[in-house]
Protein backbone atom coordinates (compact mmCIF):
# COMPACT_ATOMS: atom_id res chain seq x y z
CA UNK A 1 0.00 0.00 0.00
CA UNK A 2 1.32 3.45 -0.94
CA UNK A 3 0.92 6.21 1.64
CA UNK A 4 1.74 9.84 0.91
CA UNK A 5 3.09 11.94 3.74
CA UNK A 6 3.33 15.71 3.62
CA UNK A 7 6.04 16.90 6.01
CA UNK A 8 6.48 20.58 7.05
CA UNK A 9 9.59 21.82 8.83
CA UNK A 10 11.74 24.93 8.88
CA UNK A 11 15.01 23.03 8.60
CA UNK A 12 15.97 21.33 5.37
CA UNK A 13 18.36 19.04 7.24
CA UNK A 14 15.50 17.74 9.43
CA UNK A 15 13.21 17.37 6.43
CA UNK A 16 15.84 15.25 4.74
CA UNK A 17 16.98 13.30 7.76
CA UNK A 18 13.59 12.34 9.15
CA UNK A 19 11.94 12.11 5.74
CA UNK A 20 14.59 9.60 4.74
CA UNK A 21 14.21 7.65 7.99
CA UNK A 22 10.47 7.30 7.38
CA UNK A 23 10.89 6.20 3.78
CA UNK A 24 13.77 3.82 4.48
CA UNK A 25 12.06 2.10 7.39
CA UNK A 26 8.69 1.44 5.79
CA UNK A 27 7.60 -2.05 6.83
CA UNK A 28 6.97 -4.64 4.15
CA UNK A 29 3.67 -4.17 2.38
CA UNK A 30 3.81 -0.38 2.70
CA UNK A 31 5.60 2.29 0.71
CA UNK A 32 5.77 5.60 2.52
CA UNK A 33 6.51 8.57 0.29
CA UNK A 34 7.43 11.77 2.09
CA UNK A 35 6.92 15.09 0.35
CA UNK A 36 9.05 17.63 2.19
CA UNK A 37 8.04 21.26 2.43
CA UNK A 38 9.77 24.20 4.03
CA UNK A 39 7.07 26.00 6.02
CA UNK A 40 7.64 29.38 4.37
CA UNK A 41 6.54 27.91 1.03
CA UNK A 42 3.00 28.47 2.25
CA UNK A 43 3.51 32.22 2.71
CA UNK A 44 3.86 32.81 -0.97
CA UNK A 45 1.20 30.48 -2.24
CA UNK A 46 -1.35 28.83 -0.03
CA UNK A 47 -3.00 27.39 -3.12
CA UNK A 48 -0.07 25.06 -3.40
CA UNK A 49 -2.02 22.82 -1.04
CA UNK A 50 -4.80 22.40 -3.61
CA UNK A 51 -2.68 19.93 -5.50
CA UNK A 52 -1.73 17.85 -2.47
CA UNK A 53 -3.58 14.68 -1.50
CA UNK A 54 -1.71 13.41 1.53
CA UNK A 55 -2.61 10.43 3.71
CA UNK A 56 -0.79 12.01 6.66
CA UNK A 57 0.56 15.47 7.45
CA UNK A 58 3.55 15.91 9.75
CA UNK A 59 4.17 19.40 11.12
CA UNK A 60 7.19 20.62 13.06
CA UNK A 61 6.37 22.89 16.03
CA UNK A 62 9.20 25.40 15.81
CA UNK A 63 9.49 27.67 12.75
CA UNK A 64 11.97 30.21 14.07
CA UNK A 65 14.62 29.55 11.40
CA UNK A 66 14.79 31.76 8.32
CA UNK A 67 14.70 30.13 4.90
CA UNK A 68 17.10 30.77 2.02
CA UNK A 69 15.26 34.00 1.21
CA UNK A 70 15.64 35.28 4.77
CA UNK A 71 11.94 34.72 5.47
CA UNK A 72 10.31 33.16 8.52
CA UNK A 73 6.88 31.54 8.66
CA UNK A 74 5.66 33.77 11.48
CA UNK A 75 3.59 31.14 13.21
CA UNK A 76 4.23 27.96 15.16
CA UNK A 77 3.29 24.43 14.17
CA UNK A 78 0.01 24.44 16.05
CA UNK A 79 -1.18 27.56 14.23
CA UNK A 80 -0.01 26.07 10.95
CA UNK A 81 -1.89 22.86 11.80
CA UNK A 82 -5.06 24.89 12.33
CA UNK A 83 -4.71 26.29 8.85
CA UNK A 84 -4.01 22.85 7.42
CA UNK A 85 -6.93 21.35 9.33
CA UNK A 86 -9.36 23.66 7.52
CA UNK A 87 -7.90 22.58 4.23
CA UNK A 88 -7.68 18.87 5.11
CA UNK A 89 -10.60 17.87 7.36
CA UNK A 90 -10.18 14.22 6.43
CA UNK A 91 -6.41 13.85 6.90
CA UNK A 92 -4.48 13.16 10.12
CA UNK A 93 -2.21 15.98 11.28
CA UNK A 94 0.57 15.09 13.67
CA UNK A 95 3.02 17.50 15.26
CA UNK A 96 6.48 15.99 14.78
CA UNK A 97 8.91 17.83 16.98
CA UNK A 98 11.83 17.48 19.34
CA UNK A 99 11.55 15.78 22.70
CA UNK A 100 12.05 18.87 24.84
CA UNK A 101 9.41 20.92 23.04
CA UNK A 102 6.69 20.52 25.67
CA UNK A 103 8.95 22.19 28.22
CA UNK A 104 9.24 25.33 26.11
CA UNK A 105 7.45 28.41 27.42
CA UNK A 106 5.74 29.07 24.09
CA UNK A 107 4.31 25.56 23.76
CA UNK A 108 0.51 25.69 24.18
CA UNK A 109 -0.61 23.09 26.71
CA UNK A 110 -4.22 24.16 26.40
CA UNK A 111 -6.31 21.30 25.05
CA UNK A 112 -8.59 23.65 23.12
CA UNK A 113 -5.63 25.15 21.26
CA UNK A 114 -4.26 21.71 20.45
CA UNK A 115 -7.69 20.42 19.45
CA UNK A 116 -7.03 20.54 15.70
CA UNK A 117 -4.15 18.06 15.79
CA UNK A 118 -4.30 14.32 16.18
CA UNK A 119 -1.16 13.76 18.24
CA UNK A 120 2.27 15.06 19.18
CA UNK A 121 5.18 12.77 18.33
CA UNK A 122 8.93 13.15 18.60
CA UNK A 123 11.51 13.14 15.84
CA UNK A 124 14.01 11.25 17.95
CA UNK A 125 11.63 8.27 18.01
CA UNK A 126 12.23 7.81 14.28
CA UNK A 127 15.76 6.64 14.99
CA UNK A 128 15.50 2.87 14.42
CA UNK A 129 17.43 1.90 17.54
CA UNK A 130 14.72 3.43 19.75
CA UNK A 131 12.15 0.79 18.71
CA UNK A 132 9.36 3.28 19.22
CA UNK A 133 6.97 1.87 16.59
CA UNK A 134 6.41 5.44 15.41
CA UNK A 135 6.30 4.42 11.76
CA UNK A 136 3.74 1.71 12.56
CA UNK A 137 1.69 4.41 14.26
CA UNK A 138 1.97 6.65 11.14
CA UNK A 139 0.68 3.77 9.04
CA UNK A 140 -2.17 2.96 11.45
CA UNK A 141 -3.45 6.52 11.60
CA UNK A 142 -3.03 7.11 7.86
CA UNK A 143 -4.80 3.87 6.93
CA UNK A 144 -7.57 4.51 9.47
CA UNK A 145 -8.21 7.98 8.05
CA UNK A 146 -8.14 6.63 4.51
CA UNK A 147 -10.92 4.18 5.44
CA UNK A 148 -12.87 7.07 6.94
CA UNK A 149 -12.35 9.17 3.80
CA UNK A 150 -13.49 6.36 1.54
CA UNK A 151 -16.62 5.58 3.54
CA UNK A 152 -19.86 6.98 2.14
CA UNK A 153 -22.27 8.16 3.34
CA UNK A 154 -20.55 9.47 6.44
CA UNK A 155 -23.27 8.56 8.92
CA UNK A 156 -23.32 6.83 12.29
CA UNK A 157 -24.25 3.44 10.83
CA UNK A 158 -21.19 3.43 8.61
CA UNK A 159 -18.98 4.66 11.42
CA UNK A 160 -20.15 1.77 13.59
CA UNK A 161 -19.37 -0.56 10.69
CA UNK A 162 -15.82 0.82 10.48
CA UNK A 163 -15.17 0.04 14.10
CA UNK A 164 -16.73 -3.43 13.72
CA UNK A 165 -18.83 -2.88 16.83
CA UNK A 166 -20.88 -5.79 18.17
CA UNK A 167 -24.63 -5.23 18.14
CA UNK A 168 -24.68 -5.38 21.93
CA UNK A 169 -22.68 -2.12 22.05
CA UNK A 170 -24.84 -0.15 19.59
CA UNK A 171 -26.97 1.56 22.25
CA UNK A 172 -23.96 2.78 24.21
CA UNK A 173 -22.23 3.98 21.04
CA UNK A 174 -25.30 5.96 20.06
CA UNK A 175 -25.32 7.60 23.50
CA UNK A 176 -21.66 8.43 23.04
CA UNK A 177 -21.94 9.85 19.54
CA UNK A 178 -21.46 13.66 19.53
CA UNK A 179 -24.77 15.47 19.31
CA UNK A 180 -23.38 18.02 16.81
CA UNK A 181 -22.46 15.33 14.32
CA UNK A 182 -25.76 13.56 14.89
CA UNK A 183 -27.63 16.78 14.10
CA UNK A 184 -25.51 17.46 11.00
CA UNK A 185 -25.97 13.82 9.94
CA UNK A 186 -22.38 13.64 8.77
CA UNK A 187 -18.82 13.68 10.07
CA UNK A 188 -15.40 14.67 8.85
CA UNK A 189 -12.55 12.19 9.04
CA UNK A 190 -10.97 14.25 11.80
CA UNK A 191 -14.20 14.30 13.87
CA UNK A 192 -14.72 10.57 13.46
CA UNK A 193 -11.07 9.76 14.21
CA UNK A 194 -11.14 11.99 17.30
CA UNK A 195 -14.30 10.29 18.54
CA UNK A 196 -12.82 6.83 18.03
CA UNK A 197 -9.27 7.48 19.22
CA UNK A 198 -9.71 10.11 21.93
CA UNK A 199 -13.01 8.94 23.40
CA UNK A 200 -13.92 5.38 22.53
CA UNK A 201 -10.39 3.94 22.62
CA UNK A 202 -9.12 6.26 25.31
CA UNK A 203 -11.59 5.86 28.17
CA UNK A 204 -12.58 2.46 29.59
CA UNK A 205 -16.26 1.62 29.46
CA UNK A 206 -17.19 0.34 26.02
CA UNK A 207 -13.74 -0.90 25.09
CA UNK A 208 -11.43 -2.29 27.74
CA UNK A 209 -7.66 -2.63 27.66
CA UNK A 210 -6.19 -5.93 28.95
CA UNK A 211 -6.07 -4.96 32.65
CA UNK A 212 -9.66 -3.66 32.62
CA UNK A 213 -10.79 -6.74 30.67
CA UNK A 214 -9.06 -9.04 33.15
CA UNK A 215 -10.55 -7.21 36.14
CA UNK A 216 -14.00 -7.22 34.54
CA UNK A 217 -13.69 -11.01 34.34
CA UNK A 218 -12.38 -11.19 37.90
CA UNK A 219 -9.03 -12.65 36.85
CA UNK A 220 -5.43 -11.47 36.97
CA UNK A 221 -3.78 -9.82 33.98
CA UNK A 222 -1.45 -12.79 33.60
CA UNK A 223 -4.42 -15.15 33.50
CA UNK A 224 -6.15 -12.98 30.90
CA UNK A 225 -3.05 -12.98 28.74
CA UNK A 226 -2.67 -16.75 28.60
CA UNK A 227 -3.13 -18.06 25.05
CA UNK A 228 -6.16 -20.15 26.15
CA UNK A 229 -8.05 -17.15 27.50
CA UNK A 230 -7.03 -14.91 24.58
CA UNK A 231 -8.31 -17.53 22.14
CA UNK A 232 -11.51 -17.99 24.13
CA UNK A 233 -12.31 -14.28 23.90
CA UNK A 234 -10.79 -13.71 20.47
CA UNK A 235 -14.03 -12.50 18.88
CA UNK A 236 -14.26 -9.76 21.54
CA UNK A 237 -10.99 -8.20 20.40
CA UNK A 238 -11.27 -4.73 18.83
CA UNK A 239 -10.32 -5.04 15.17
CA UNK A 240 -11.82 -1.82 13.80
CA UNK A 241 -9.87 1.13 12.43
CA UNK A 242 -6.90 2.34 14.46
CA UNK A 243 -6.85 -1.03 16.29
CA UNK A 244 -3.09 -1.30 15.71
CA UNK A 245 -2.61 1.49 18.26
CA UNK A 246 -3.97 -0.35 21.30
CA UNK A 247 -4.93 -3.82 22.45
CA UNK A 248 -8.63 -3.38 23.26
CA UNK A 249 -11.64 -5.59 23.86
CA UNK A 250 -15.39 -5.02 23.56
CA UNK A 251 -16.85 -5.18 27.06
CA UNK A 252 -20.31 -6.36 25.96
CA UNK A 253 -18.75 -9.06 23.79
CA UNK A 254 -16.62 -10.32 26.68
CA UNK A 255 -19.79 -10.55 28.75
CA UNK A 256 -21.67 -12.32 25.98
CA UNK A 257 -18.95 -14.91 25.33
CA UNK A 258 -18.49 -15.62 29.03
CA UNK A 259 -22.15 -15.80 29.97
CA UNK A 260 -23.04 -17.97 26.95
CA UNK A 261 -20.55 -20.55 28.20
CA UNK A 262 -21.42 -20.44 31.87
CA UNK A 263 -24.11 -22.49 33.56
CA UNK A 264 -27.03 -20.94 35.40
CA UNK A 265 -25.59 -20.84 38.93
CA UNK A 266 -22.42 -19.15 37.57
CA UNK A 267 -24.41 -16.82 35.35
CA UNK A 268 -26.42 -15.60 38.32
CA UNK A 269 -23.25 -14.37 39.99
CA UNK A 270 -21.55 -11.12 39.02
CA UNK A 271 -19.29 -11.87 36.03
CA UNK A 272 -16.16 -11.32 38.09
CA UNK A 273 -17.22 -14.17 40.39
CA UNK A 274 -19.01 -16.45 37.95
CA UNK A 275 -16.47 -16.57 35.13
CA UNK A 276 -13.55 -17.86 37.17
CA UNK A 277 -15.79 -20.54 38.70
CA UNK A 278 -16.88 -21.62 35.23
CA UNK A 279 -13.36 -21.61 33.82
CA UNK A 280 -11.71 -23.47 36.67
CA UNK A 281 -14.51 -26.06 36.56
CA UNK A 282 -14.14 -26.75 32.86
CA UNK A 283 -10.47 -26.14 32.01
CA UNK A 284 -7.23 -27.70 33.17
CA UNK A 285 -5.57 -24.28 33.19
CA UNK A 286 -6.61 -22.70 36.50
CA UNK A 287 -7.05 -18.93 36.44
CA UNK A 288 -5.93 -16.64 39.24
CA UNK A 289 -8.39 -14.05 40.59
CA UNK A 290 -7.80 -10.31 40.33
CA UNK A 291 -6.40 -9.09 43.62
CA UNK A 292 -7.04 -5.70 45.21
CA UNK A 293 -3.76 -3.80 45.48
CA UNK A 294 -4.78 -2.24 48.80
CA UNK A 295 -6.07 -5.14 50.91
CA UNK A 296 -5.36 -8.22 48.80
CA UNK A 297 -9.08 -9.16 48.59
CA UNK A 298 -10.54 -10.85 45.51
CA UNK A 299 -12.02 -10.19 43.10
CA UNK A 300 -11.14 -6.56 42.59
CA UNK A 301 -13.80 -4.58 40.73
CA UNK A 302 -11.98 -1.75 39.03
CA UNK A 303 -8.51 -0.51 38.09
CA UNK A 304 -6.64 2.33 39.75
CA UNK A 305 -6.21 5.26 37.35
CA UNK A 306 -2.67 5.92 38.55
CA UNK A 307 -1.15 2.53 39.38
CA UNK A 308 -3.13 0.62 36.70
CA UNK A 309 -3.59 -2.14 39.29
CA UNK A 310 -6.88 -3.84 40.27
CA UNK A 311 -8.62 -2.48 43.34
CA UNK A 312 -11.92 -2.89 45.16
CA UNK A 313 -14.40 -0.05 44.73
CA UNK A 314 -14.54 0.37 48.49
CA UNK A 315 -10.78 0.95 48.62
CA UNK A 316 -10.73 3.59 45.89
CA UNK A 317 -12.17 7.05 45.25
CA UNK A 318 -13.57 8.88 42.25
CA UNK A 319 -10.87 10.98 40.61
CA UNK A 320 -12.15 13.83 38.41
CA UNK A 321 -9.12 13.79 36.17
CA UNK A 322 -10.69 14.27 32.74
CA UNK A 323 -13.97 15.03 31.03
CA UNK A 324 -14.81 11.50 30.01
CA UNK A 325 -18.42 10.90 28.94
CA UNK A 326 -20.89 9.59 31.48
CA UNK A 327 -21.26 6.20 29.81
CA UNK A 328 -17.60 5.45 30.48
CA UNK A 329 -16.26 3.96 33.71
CA UNK A 330 -15.27 6.65 36.17
CA UNK A 331 -11.59 7.13 36.97
CA UNK A 332 -10.81 5.92 40.50
CA UNK A 333 -7.64 6.04 42.55
CA UNK A 334 -6.80 3.31 45.04
CA UNK A 335 -6.16 3.99 48.72
CA UNK A 336 -2.72 2.52 48.13
CA UNK A 337 -1.92 5.08 45.45
CA UNK A 338 -3.22 7.86 47.67
CA UNK A 339 -0.92 6.67 50.44
CA UNK A 340 2.18 6.02 48.42
CA UNK A 341 2.32 8.00 45.20
CA UNK A 342 3.60 11.52 44.69
CA UNK A 343 1.58 12.21 41.56
CA UNK A 344 -1.86 12.25 43.24
CA UNK A 345 -3.58 15.61 42.69
CA UNK A 346 -5.85 16.12 45.70
CA UNK A 347 -7.75 18.90 43.95
CA UNK A 348 -9.22 16.23 41.68
CA UNK A 349 -11.20 14.55 44.47
CA UNK A 350 -14.66 15.74 45.48
CA UNK A 351 -15.48 16.84 49.02
CA UNK A 352 -16.86 13.42 50.02
CA UNK A 353 -13.64 11.75 48.90
CA UNK A 354 -11.48 14.34 50.69
CA UNK A 355 -13.39 13.62 53.89
CA UNK A 356 -12.80 9.88 53.46
CA UNK A 357 -9.07 10.47 52.88
CA UNK A 358 -9.05 12.38 56.14
CA UNK A 359 -11.08 9.83 58.12
CA UNK A 360 -9.09 6.89 56.80
CA UNK A 361 -5.86 8.79 57.49
CA UNK A 362 -4.62 7.96 54.01
CA UNK A 363 -2.46 11.06 53.87
CA UNK A 364 -1.01 12.99 56.79
Amino acid at each position, binding site marked *: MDLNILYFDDEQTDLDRYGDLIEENSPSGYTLKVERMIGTALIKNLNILDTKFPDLILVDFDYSNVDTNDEVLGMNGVTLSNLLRQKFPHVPIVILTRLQIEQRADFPHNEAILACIDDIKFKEDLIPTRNSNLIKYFISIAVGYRKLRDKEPKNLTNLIELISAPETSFDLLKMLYPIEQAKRKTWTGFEAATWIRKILMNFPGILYNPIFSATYLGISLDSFQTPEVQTFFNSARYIGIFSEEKDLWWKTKIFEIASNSMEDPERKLPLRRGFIKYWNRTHSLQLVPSVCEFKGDSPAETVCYLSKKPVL*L*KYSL*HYYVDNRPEVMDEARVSFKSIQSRDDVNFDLFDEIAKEIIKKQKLKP
Partner: protein
Amino acid sequence: MTLISEYNRNLKWLFIQKEIYKKLHYANQADIPPICKIKEINGKRIWYMDLLETPLIFKITSHDVFSEIEILLKFEAEEINEKLVIIQYGVNIRLWSDKSQYCYRELFDSSRIKELVDQGDWKRVMIRFHIEKKEPNVTLPEPFCHLNFGGKQSSNEYCWIPTTIREPRFPHPPMDFVLLLEYILVNYYPNETRDFREKREWIDIVRFSQKLFQENYFEVCQSWLSDEDNTYLGHQCSIC
Protein backbone atom coordinates in the same frame (compact mmCIF):
# COMPACT_ATOMS: atom_id res chain seq x y z
CA MET B 1 -18.18 21.72 58.80
CA THR B 2 -21.35 21.22 60.83
CA LEU B 3 -23.13 17.92 60.99
CA ILE B 4 -26.10 19.17 59.01
CA SER B 5 -23.95 20.68 56.27
CA GLU B 6 -22.13 17.37 56.02
CA TYR B 7 -25.49 15.63 55.73
CA ASN B 8 -26.75 18.00 53.04
CA ARG B 9 -23.46 17.63 51.18
CA ASN B 10 -24.10 13.87 51.15
CA LEU B 11 -27.57 14.42 49.69
CA LYS B 12 -26.18 16.71 47.01
CA TRP B 13 -23.51 14.14 46.11
CA LEU B 14 -26.15 11.46 45.70
CA PHE B 15 -28.17 13.60 43.36
CA ILE B 16 -25.32 14.12 40.94
CA GLN B 17 -24.71 10.39 40.63
CA LYS B 18 -26.08 8.99 37.39
CA GLU B 19 -27.11 5.82 39.23
CA ILE B 20 -29.54 7.99 41.20
CA TYR B 21 -30.68 10.93 39.11
CA LYS B 22 -31.32 8.84 36.02
CA LYS B 23 -33.88 6.84 37.95
CA LEU B 24 -35.69 9.86 39.31
CA HIS B 25 -38.35 12.00 37.88
CA TYR B 26 -39.67 15.05 39.56
CA ALA B 27 -43.38 15.20 39.20
CA ASN B 28 -44.08 18.60 40.63
CA GLN B 29 -40.95 20.45 41.48
CA ALA B 30 -37.76 21.85 40.04
CA ASP B 31 -34.76 19.56 39.78
CA ILE B 32 -33.35 20.20 43.20
CA PRO B 33 -32.16 17.59 45.66
CA PRO B 34 -33.90 17.37 49.03
CA ILE B 35 -32.34 19.51 51.71
CA CYS B 36 -32.50 19.16 55.44
CA LYS B 37 -32.98 22.42 57.36
CA ILE B 38 -32.35 23.42 60.93
CA LYS B 39 -34.17 25.54 63.50
CA GLU B 40 -33.07 26.46 67.00
CA ILE B 41 -35.73 26.21 69.70
CA ASN B 42 -34.76 26.94 73.31
CA GLY B 43 -31.14 26.24 72.49
CA LYS B 44 -32.00 22.90 70.89
CA ARG B 45 -30.89 22.21 67.35
CA ILE B 46 -33.86 20.73 65.53
CA TRP B 47 -33.37 19.23 62.08
CA TYR B 48 -36.37 19.06 59.80
CA MET B 49 -37.19 17.89 56.34
CA ASP B 50 -40.54 17.91 54.59
CA LEU B 51 -40.97 16.13 51.29
CA LEU B 52 -44.73 15.64 51.62
CA GLU B 53 -45.47 18.18 48.92
CA THR B 54 -42.50 17.20 46.80
CA PRO B 55 -42.35 13.42 46.73
CA LEU B 56 -39.39 11.72 45.18
CA ILE B 57 -40.46 9.40 42.41
CA PHE B 58 -38.20 6.67 41.07
CA LYS B 59 -38.89 5.03 37.73
CA ILE B 60 -38.84 1.25 37.88
CA THR B 61 -38.21 -0.11 34.42
CA SER B 62 -37.57 -3.79 34.85
CA HIS B 63 -40.29 -5.01 37.18
CA ASP B 64 -43.26 -7.20 36.25
CA VAL B 65 -45.73 -5.19 38.29
CA PHE B 66 -44.36 -1.87 39.50
CA SER B 67 -43.54 1.15 37.36
CA GLU B 68 -42.79 3.80 40.00
CA ILE B 69 -41.95 4.09 43.65
CA GLU B 70 -42.98 7.29 45.37
CA ILE B 71 -41.59 8.48 48.68
CA LEU B 72 -43.08 11.13 50.92
CA LEU B 73 -40.94 11.91 53.94
CA LYS B 74 -41.26 14.26 56.86
CA PHE B 75 -39.28 14.35 60.06
CA GLU B 76 -38.12 16.50 62.93
CA ALA B 77 -35.25 15.43 65.14
CA GLU B 78 -33.07 16.97 67.78
CA GLU B 79 -29.31 16.86 67.34
CA ILE B 80 -27.69 15.51 70.50
CA ASN B 81 -24.04 14.40 70.62
CA GLU B 82 -23.77 14.03 66.85
CA LYS B 83 -26.85 11.83 66.64
CA LEU B 84 -30.52 12.55 66.07
CA VAL B 85 -33.33 11.92 68.50
CA ILE B 86 -36.56 11.64 66.56
CA ILE B 87 -39.34 14.04 67.52
CA GLN B 88 -41.70 13.59 64.58
CA TYR B 89 -41.29 11.05 61.85
CA GLY B 90 -43.35 9.72 58.98
CA VAL B 91 -42.58 8.22 55.62
CA ASN B 92 -45.15 7.07 53.06
CA ILE B 93 -44.14 4.75 50.28
CA ARG B 94 -46.37 4.02 47.34
CA LEU B 95 -45.65 1.53 44.61
CA TRP B 96 -47.46 2.33 41.38
CA SER B 97 -48.14 0.18 38.37
CA ASP B 98 -48.89 1.31 34.85
CA LYS B 99 -49.53 -2.23 33.61
CA SER B 100 -53.11 -2.51 32.40
CA GLN B 101 -53.67 -5.99 33.84
CA TYR B 102 -52.92 -4.68 37.34
CA CYS B 103 -54.57 -1.27 37.03
CA TYR B 104 -57.84 -2.91 36.13
CA ARG B 105 -58.55 -6.55 37.01
CA GLU B 106 -61.56 -7.56 35.06
CA LEU B 107 -62.56 -10.36 37.45
CA PHE B 108 -62.30 -8.28 40.62
CA ASP B 109 -62.71 -4.58 39.83
CA SER B 110 -65.87 -2.66 39.01
CA SER B 111 -66.22 -0.93 35.66
CA ARG B 112 -66.08 2.35 37.60
CA ILE B 113 -62.44 1.59 38.47
CA LYS B 114 -61.73 1.18 34.77
CA GLU B 115 -63.21 4.63 34.10
CA LEU B 116 -61.21 6.16 36.93
CA VAL B 117 -57.83 4.71 35.99
CA ASP B 118 -58.57 5.63 32.42
CA GLN B 119 -58.94 9.24 33.52
CA GLY B 120 -55.66 8.97 35.41
CA ASP B 121 -53.47 7.71 32.55
CA TRP B 122 -53.67 4.08 33.66
CA LYS B 123 -51.75 4.29 36.87
CA ARG B 124 -52.72 2.68 40.13
CA VAL B 125 -51.11 2.12 43.51
CA MET B 126 -50.43 -1.57 44.04
CA ILE B 127 -49.10 -1.39 47.55
CA ARG B 128 -48.62 1.41 50.04
CA PHE B 129 -46.98 1.39 53.42
CA HIS B 130 -45.65 3.83 55.90
CA ILE B 131 -43.13 3.98 58.69
CA GLU B 132 -43.98 6.36 61.49
CA LYS B 133 -43.24 7.27 65.04
CA LYS B 134 -45.96 6.49 67.57
CA GLU B 135 -48.25 9.43 68.20
CA PRO B 136 -48.44 10.59 71.83
CA ASN B 137 -51.56 9.55 73.76
CA VAL B 138 -52.39 6.50 71.65
CA THR B 139 -54.84 4.18 73.38
CA LEU B 140 -53.83 0.89 71.81
CA PRO B 141 -50.30 -0.49 72.13
CA GLU B 142 -48.04 0.18 69.20
CA PRO B 143 -44.27 0.04 68.68
CA PHE B 144 -42.32 3.24 69.12
CA CYS B 145 -41.40 3.38 65.45
CA HIS B 146 -43.34 1.02 63.23
CA LEU B 147 -44.15 -0.02 59.71
CA ASN B 148 -47.65 -0.77 58.54
CA PHE B 149 -49.58 -1.18 55.35
CA GLY B 150 -52.53 0.70 53.92
CA GLY B 151 -53.39 4.12 55.26
CA LYS B 152 -55.24 7.13 53.95
CA GLN B 153 -55.10 7.38 50.20
CA SER B 154 -55.01 10.38 47.93
CA SER B 155 -57.74 10.63 45.32
CA ASN B 156 -56.13 8.82 42.40
CA GLU B 157 -54.47 5.86 44.09
CA TYR B 158 -57.25 3.22 44.06
CA CYS B 159 -55.02 0.99 46.11
CA TRP B 160 -56.22 -2.57 46.63
CA ILE B 161 -55.60 -2.37 50.37
CA PRO B 162 -58.56 -1.03 52.42
CA THR B 163 -57.79 2.31 54.04
CA THR B 164 -59.17 1.18 57.38
CA ILE B 165 -56.45 -1.39 58.03
CA ARG B 166 -54.23 -0.17 60.85
CA GLU B 167 -52.46 -3.35 61.85
CA PRO B 168 -50.11 -5.13 61.91
CA ARG B 169 -47.54 -2.62 63.07
CA PHE B 170 -44.02 -4.02 62.87
CA PRO B 171 -41.24 -2.38 64.87
CA HIS B 172 -38.98 -0.67 62.37
CA PRO B 173 -36.00 1.67 62.72
CA PRO B 174 -36.40 5.22 61.41
CA MET B 175 -34.96 5.75 57.95
CA ASP B 176 -33.89 8.96 56.35
CA PHE B 177 -33.83 9.56 52.62
CA VAL B 178 -30.40 7.94 52.20
CA LEU B 179 -31.36 4.76 54.02
CA LEU B 180 -34.60 4.54 52.07
CA LEU B 181 -32.60 4.99 48.91
CA GLU B 182 -30.44 2.02 49.79
CA TYR B 183 -33.59 -0.10 50.18
CA ILE B 184 -34.84 1.08 46.81
CA LEU B 185 -31.57 0.33 45.04
CA VAL B 186 -31.23 -3.09 46.65
CA ASN B 187 -34.84 -4.07 45.95
CA TYR B 188 -35.53 -2.57 42.56
CA TYR B 189 -32.14 -2.09 40.92
CA PRO B 190 -30.10 -4.90 42.48
CA ASN B 191 -27.83 -5.74 39.56
CA GLU B 192 -27.40 -2.40 37.85
CA THR B 193 -26.42 -0.68 41.11
CA ARG B 194 -24.23 -3.45 42.49
CA ASP B 195 -20.99 -1.66 41.67
CA PHE B 196 -22.36 1.69 42.78
CA ARG B 197 -23.24 0.20 46.17
CA GLU B 198 -19.71 -1.15 46.49
CA LYS B 199 -18.18 2.31 46.18
CA ARG B 200 -16.52 3.75 49.24
CA GLU B 201 -18.31 7.08 48.84
CA TRP B 202 -21.72 5.39 48.93
CA ILE B 203 -20.80 3.15 51.86
CA ASP B 204 -19.61 6.15 53.88
CA ILE B 205 -22.71 8.19 53.11
CA VAL B 206 -25.03 5.35 54.15
CA ARG B 207 -23.02 4.73 57.30
CA PHE B 208 -23.21 8.43 58.14
CA SER B 209 -27.03 8.24 57.96
CA GLN B 210 -27.08 4.99 59.96
CA LYS B 211 -25.14 6.69 62.71
CA LEU B 212 -27.35 9.74 62.69
CA PHE B 213 -30.74 8.09 62.48
CA GLN B 214 -30.35 4.52 63.71
CA GLU B 215 -27.48 4.16 66.16
CA ASN B 216 -29.50 5.40 69.13
CA TYR B 217 -32.45 3.25 68.12
CA PHE B 218 -30.43 0.05 67.93
CA GLU B 219 -28.53 0.77 71.14
CA VAL B 220 -31.84 1.06 72.99
CA CYS B 221 -33.21 -2.07 71.27
CA GLN B 222 -30.07 -3.96 72.29
CA SER B 223 -30.57 -2.97 75.93
CA TRP B 224 -34.21 -4.21 75.80
CA LEU B 225 -33.09 -7.62 74.61
CA SER B 226 -31.19 -8.16 77.85
CA ASP B 227 -34.07 -7.12 80.12
CA GLU B 228 -35.45 -10.18 81.91
CA ASP B 229 -38.58 -8.35 83.07
CA ASN B 230 -40.05 -7.30 79.74
CA THR B 231 -40.16 -8.35 76.13
CA TYR B 232 -38.71 -6.47 73.22
CA LEU B 233 -42.14 -5.62 71.81
CA GLY B 234 -43.34 -4.80 75.28
CA HIS B 235 -40.63 -2.17 75.54
CA GLN B 236 -41.37 -0.92 72.04
CA CYS B 237 -45.00 -0.35 72.98
CA SER B 238 -44.35 1.16 76.38
CA ILE B 239 -42.14 4.08 75.37
CA CYS B 240 -43.27 7.18 73.62
